[in-house]
């Protein structure tokens, strides 16, 4: 990238199954207040804001109009990205690189607990003629993908279960996560089936929370107190949405997004040049599929590597150091926000008990969930 952009502040509410004490406004307000304190700025200094929301998830149409107040963005430039937080981050980076603003705020929020009919919401995303009449569960779509991925890659159900054990254990040490658990492999393998080969513990539980992030241009970084984490590049890609003809084995959307991000960040051998990854693990197999798509190991190797501890915090290439979706929750469009948050804390050396010894370059990757084929990737460095 020819103009450098840094994350100079980040704030979160943490992630919980329910948040009955606050509305979506107060949830974002808390994360925003913390992010501005972290960056040492007032919202008046912000040139533009990017919110991420999706009307059907909020239960409001034109929900983007409800974004300004809780960000301090009244009478300011704001737009909404109906996509993953990392896509919103990409929009923020562009606002700075184009010279539109020196400081940009990116927001993401999940009030999953307020969506009573989540299954129907996702079924509503299916094509009304080709797929909706069949009324397939979103988990069944994921299970078909898992089956094909395991079949093609040679990874196993046991290796997927290992991902669950690791991420839920990492979450035990994460004060922002609610789903920490000391599970054994057998606990996962014996959990009741949801859509075979997926069982209950392979699936991330829904959670509420908010993340707000402050971006600044290189020129502005000097005058801010923060601990800048540089955005080396950000990219995203979407495959065809067709359930009939998409690629079921590989996460090609993530592979394309990653290749472009690496190219622009000047990364040739990601596994060597990157120290750790925070990536979407909304279903256990997605962690393995995304590790391979991000080029962090050879095709078909992620499962074996997970078995020997490669992706543990103490391993050669830590993945989802703070618990990922399995440990923090399925946050819908905030997925990438949780990933960026944990990458930033590691890169700053502020990850507490979860802190890695070496954390200089990270990749964070979000997926928009079933039934989408959209992945977004950001490479971050300190």
């Amino acid at each position, binding site marked *: 990238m020819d103009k450098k952009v840094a994350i100079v502040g980040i704030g979160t509410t943490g992630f919980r199954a329910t948040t009955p004490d606050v509305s*979506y406004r107060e949830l974002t*307000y808390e994360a925003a207040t913390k992010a501005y304190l972290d960056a040492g700025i007032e919202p008046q200094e912000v040139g533009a804001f990017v919110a991420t929301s999706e009307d059907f998830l909020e239960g409001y149409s034109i929900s983007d109009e409800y974004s300004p107040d809780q960000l301090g963005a009244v009478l300011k430039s704001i737009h909404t990205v109906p996509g993953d937080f990392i896509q919103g981050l990409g929009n923020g980076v562009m606002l700075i690189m184009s010279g539109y603003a020196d400081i940009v705020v990116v927001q993401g929020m999940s009030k999953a607990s307020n969506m009573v009919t989540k299954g129907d919401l996702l079924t509503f995303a299916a094509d009304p003629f080709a797929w909706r009449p069949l009324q397939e569960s979103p988990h069944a779509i994921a299970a078909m993908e898992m089956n094909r991925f395991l079949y093609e890659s040679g990874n196993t159900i046991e290796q997927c279960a290992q991902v669950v054990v690791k991420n839920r254990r990492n979450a035990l040490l994460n004060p922002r996560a609610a789903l920490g658990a000391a599970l054994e492999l057998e606990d996962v393998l014996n959990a009741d089936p949801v859509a075979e080969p997926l069982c209950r513990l392979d699936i991330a539980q829904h959670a509420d929370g908010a993340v707000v992030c402050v971006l600044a241009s290189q020129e502005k970084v000097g005058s801010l107190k923060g601990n800048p984490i540089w955005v080396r590049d950000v990219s995203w890609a979407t495959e065809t949405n067709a359930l009939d003809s998409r690629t079921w084995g590989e996460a090609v959307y993530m592979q394309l997004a990653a290749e472009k991000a690496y190219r622009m960040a000047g990364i040739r051998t990601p596994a060597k040049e990157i120290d750790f990854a925070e990536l979407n693990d909304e279903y256990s197999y997605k962690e393995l599929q995304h590790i391979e798509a991000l080029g962090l190991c050879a095709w078909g190797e992620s499962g074996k590597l997970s078995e020997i501890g490669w992706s543990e915090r103490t391993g050669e290439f830590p993945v989802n150091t703070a618990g990922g979706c399995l440990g923090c929750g399925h946050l819908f469009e905030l997925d990438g926000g949780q990933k960026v948050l944990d990458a930033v804390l590691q890169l700053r050396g502020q990850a507490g008990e979860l802190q890695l010894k070496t954390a200089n370059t990270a990749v964070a990757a979000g997926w928009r969930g079933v039934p989408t084929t959209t992945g977004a990737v950001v490479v971050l460095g300190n």
Partner: protein
Amino acid sequence: MDIKHQKKIDKTVTSLRKKDVTGGKVVTESWEPNLEYAWDNGPAISRYLAELKKGKLIGKRCNKCDRVLLPPRMFCEICWRPTDEWVYVEDTGTVNTFCISHVDWKAGRLNIKGGVRPFTPAVIEIDGASKGMGILHMIDKTNPKNIKMGMRVKAVWKPAEKREGSITDIEYFKPIGKKK
């Protein structure tokens, strides 16, 4: 394309009539979305609704800009700080703006000539709240032609046993005399 051929096409192209759809002559797919939400209102709106049930209007003050925000908010969006005390406000106010609507909220035409009263929605600046702060509601029981900018109005509440913690616990606003 020659005219003869065009005519042949025109003969086969017919506009769809309702009975073609209902009679199964054309293939259709319908879907009733089942979208249900249970919004957490947070402390401010929850208390606002609870007070409505008691027949009262409550706002919240920001001590920095000295505004009384109505409906109440937990933070001041201008000063970017948490708000301060809860403040009961009056159920009287002044019309900021209004209109005489011949259509309902789905934009369906009301039978005005048949005697249906037009809707008269209004924004009412509530006494005790800051200038510009108020309630979007409706005015009733007065000839729409008599509604004026700056007119003084008062809430007409539902009987206590019928109130349920909703903005409709106020049935409508009615005109009252000039402010003392």
